[in-house]
């Protein structure tokens, strides 16, 4: 299913992240969670799931899940577009090889906005 309608700003999206991309003392998401991989990976943007934390968690074998608010992502000059529901991409994020300052600034901005979802929350969502 494809969805070309812009997501409302009050939408919450979910990003699967490496467990090491969370500070274990504070549970804060680290900027490394928002760095693009080398091309061709992430050419369309940083992957997010628009359905649920549980849907996001099932995409990868071992990951944690962070949530983001679409309106706040847009405030940072980025956007989120759905390409293959429930998959979507955070767009306009540069790679460090193209603009290291912008890439670092945006990774910090997204990390500050992201909230870690406790694993028991999405485990509990399973049928």
């Amino acid at each position, binding site marked *: 299913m494809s969805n070309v309608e812009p997501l409302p700003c009050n939408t919450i999206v979910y990003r699967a992240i490496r467990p090491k991309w969370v500070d274990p003392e504070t549970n804060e998401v680290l900027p490394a969670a928002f760095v693009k*991989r080398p091309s061709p990976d992430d050419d369309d943007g940083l992957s997010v799931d628009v359905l649920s934390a549980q849907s996001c968690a099932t995409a990868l074998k071992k990951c944690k899940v962070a949530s983001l608010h679409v309106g706040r992502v847009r405030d940072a000059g980025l956007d989120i577009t759905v390409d293959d529901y429930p998959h979507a991409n955070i767009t306009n994020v540069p790679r460090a090889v193209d603009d290291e300052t912008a890439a670092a600034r945006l990774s910090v901005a997204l*990390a500050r906005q992201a909230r870690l979802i406790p694993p028991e929350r999405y485990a509990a969502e399973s049928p």
Partner: protein
Amino acid sequence: MATVTKTSPAFDEVEHKLAYFRAAQYRRPSDSVETGDDRITPEPVSEGRAKMASAGIRYFSDVIKQLNELRAEAEEDDFGVLQATEHAYETACQLVTDAAILAACGGRQIPRGRASTDAEGGVRIDWMRPDAAVCLIVPASKVRDPYIYHDVAGNFATDPATDSALSRWLREIP
């Protein structure tokens, strides 16, 4: 005839510990010819670095411990390379150690930070606070130079990674 009195230079405990551990972790420069893929044949963490991690030097030892763990990680996960490459690990350890020495000489210590790898085995150390952020970013290979990103009091920029620049920016992190 004048009397010459010899005195020993004074070091505080932190300076002494750091000087000791820097000497302990010294490694001969490697040959200029690359002999293998450092992602699949990792060097074990040196005894000196293991000592630094367990020395209990506030925040510094913890960062070195995190870097040692990243060097000993599994090679890959779903996101890409998980294990820090030798280049990224060595460069990050050296910069943090030298920055900690400079900080100690100025009567400071480096603040609490968190290390992680990117999807290529590059290393980054983030010092995130509500009003400031400093990030040391070391790419996986020598192809790209390491750099420091700072976002302090609404001003942000990147600088080439040097021990003095890192020590200077970390002053802004409470």
